[in-house]
């Protein structure tokens, strides 16, 4: 199986779908001539022409709104936001229009669009450019939210997202674009709303998504050296949430730690912890724990940024705590 970069997997997904369906187009800042700020759309302008790969002005709310309108009248836009920090400017179009048109038109309009780009922090980009704001979208009925963790998942999930008739928020990660993974040459799809068990263990369940999955894998490896084995569940889609594999795992381990890059308050971890507590109360041996960013704007200073972010050590400590092996 070819080993390709995350950005290449996304590129393949878009190209394959655009070959298949002429109503699909890509629009965003510098997606065309510059081949994308992170080179995800490399070669696409050349391949599909300026009518289907469109450089937009720096006007997020406008070009996302254009996408909503295009979707409502029968096209299938892929809107690239340079980062989801900039998508904050487009929240009105995303939350008030994209998420609502189907409902407000009594089903007469549909909004088959994908809004994609990197979310979360990279390195020393300061607080305005380092935000993991998936909760804004997960909070909103009418949206689907996808956050893949590997090139394989990214390709399969992006193809399914493009084919879905609902607006999909597809959040990637700047620091994962260069990550390589095996992706088959033949076509495949990964269904939305299905989470995935990526590691087997009996002592504690780790629930996470996107790039935090790799920190969980790191932590789990170190814990295995101490005799503590973790299950890891990759949620992949945050809305709708598929918690069945999580429940199966927690019913076995009786302990759970949820890991997210975002701030703690009202995050995905809060929701997952709540549902486990509600549905699986009798299975718990310890209160669900979560590992998140510290509840502050992310510092620019390198040492403070590291202290603020999720680290494998913090995950290890949380696992030991729910296993009653640490205070």
């Amino acid at each position: 199986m070819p080993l390709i970069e995350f950005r290449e997997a996304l590129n393949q997904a878009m190209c394959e779908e655009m070959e298949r369906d002429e109503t699909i187009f890509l629009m965003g800042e510098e997606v065309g001539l510059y081949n994308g700020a992170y080179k995800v759309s490399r070669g696409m302008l050349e391949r599909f022409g300026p009518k289907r790969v469109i450089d937009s002005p720096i006007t997020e709310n406008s070009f996302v709104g254009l996408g909503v309108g295009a979707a409502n009248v029968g096209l299938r836009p892929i809107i690239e936001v340079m980062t989801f920090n900039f998508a904050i400017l487009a929240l009105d179009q995303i939350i008030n229009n994209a998420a609502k048109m189907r409902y407000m038109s009594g089903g007469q309009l549909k909004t088959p669009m994908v809004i994609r780009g990197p979310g979360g922090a990279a390195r020393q980009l300061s607080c305005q450019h380092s935000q993991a704001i998936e909760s804004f979208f997960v909070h909103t009925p009418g949206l689907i939210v996808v956050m893949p963790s590997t090139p394989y998942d990214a390709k399969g999930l992006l193809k399914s997202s493009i084919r879905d008739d609902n607006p999909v928020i597809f959040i990637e990660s700047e620091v994962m674009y260069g990550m390589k993974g095996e992706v088959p040459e033949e076509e495949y799809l990964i269904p939305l709303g299905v989470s995935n068990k990526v590691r087997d263990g009996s002592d504690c369940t780790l629930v996470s998504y996107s790039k935090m999955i790799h920190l969980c894998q790191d932590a789990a490896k170190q814990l295995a050296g101490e005799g503590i084995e973790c299950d890891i569940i990759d949620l992949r889609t945050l809305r709708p949430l598929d918690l069945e594999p999580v429940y199966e795992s927690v019913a076995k381990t009786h302990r759970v730690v949820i890991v997210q890059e975002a701030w703690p308050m009202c995050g995905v971890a809060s929701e997952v912890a709540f549902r486990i507590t509600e549905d699986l109360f009798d299975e718990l041996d310890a209160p669900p724990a979560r590992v998140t960013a510290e509840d502050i704007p992310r510092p620019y200073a390198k040492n403070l940024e590291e202290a603020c972010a999720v680290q494998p050590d913090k995950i290890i400590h949380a696992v030991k705590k729910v296993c009653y092996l640490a205070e």
Partner: protein
Amino acid sequence: MATLIEMPKLSDTMTTGKILSWLKKEGDALEAGTAIAEVETDKATMELEVFEDGTLLKILAPVDSAVPIGGALAIIGKPGEDIQGLIEKAQSPAAAAPAVAEKGKEVKVQEEEKPKEIKRQEKPQPAAASAPKTAAAPGEETGRIKVSPVAQRMAAERGLDLRRIQGSGPGGRIVKADIERALETTPAAAPPAPAPAEAGTPAAEAYTDVPLSSIRAVIAERLPHSLGPVPHFFLEMDLDAEPLLELKKQLQALAGEDLRLTVTDILIKACANALRQHPEINSSFLGSAVRQYHAVNVGIAVAGKGTLLVPVIRSCESKSIGQIARERAVLVEKGQAGKLSPDEMSGGTFTISNLGMLGITRFTAVINPPQAAILAVGTVRDVPVVKDGQVVPGKRMAITLSCDHRAFDGAEGARFMATLKQKLENPLAISL
């Protein structure tokens, strides 16, 4: 080097001990064997003695405080010694709530190595003035038990009594690991075949937990609201006491002078045999299961000094009437002298209260929790009875079984009583 004095495990069922008074004060010189404090457990009041010479440096547990097993009480050492480390250790959460299994072991080891170090002095318990309640239910102290949900479920499934388990989690929370430890030391669902290890050894640990049926669960939930904490019902019958008295006479003649048999001894043996046939009576209601004990440990209500004590004769099903009589005599004598140890008053699975010698015709006894039944025995009366259509002089004795309706039902109790009556009216059957 200074030593920390910890709350010892003074009875099977205690989880905490209350400091009634300090007999020594800080700065007092102590010799090994000096009593330093009075401690009240769920069973009795005892004096706590030190094991070595030294000076009482620091009292850590104030009067009236309830200290868990293993909790810090005092520090003993040489005057002027640095005890800051020990004080900190005593105040750390780990020291405040040690795992009971480990602590239990430690204390036992100490007792084996230094058998005289803990002297147990019985004092009548003021709370036990009424009814046979002396061997009180374990963990009757109020207060919520902290337990993780899965630990609670596991305990319910395996029939473990959470009050007997010390939690190792934060704030003493009982967690899964504690249940697993408890299961290692107390194998739950024992094999159904009753196998009392050796004759004469106490085997109260062996039992079968029968999961509650949904109907029994409802009965168990509702009845306590109608009739006090233990919903009693009573089954009474008259039996022909002549064969029983005849057997006692014959056995006494065979035994000679050095063994004095009583009707109670034969009653104990008859009950033990009948209970083996009806294990549902020899049981405890646990909340989510009914524990059926394999051994029959019979408590006998004894009027002690100003109180009522219930010493226990263990594994009566595997003992002869003669063995039972000897043990009973020793225990009753100790009871009357107020010298019974907590061990000798714990572990009962069934109780007999005989007030016949005091001329009581019939009475109903109050169940001694967590047991599910108690048998009240009245006096033997000379009464006219009808025999073969003729009124002739006869002897009758009333026995009344008080039953915990949560544990079993009327018909089960009645079948046990029928078996018991059959045995007592044909007492040779006891030796079968």
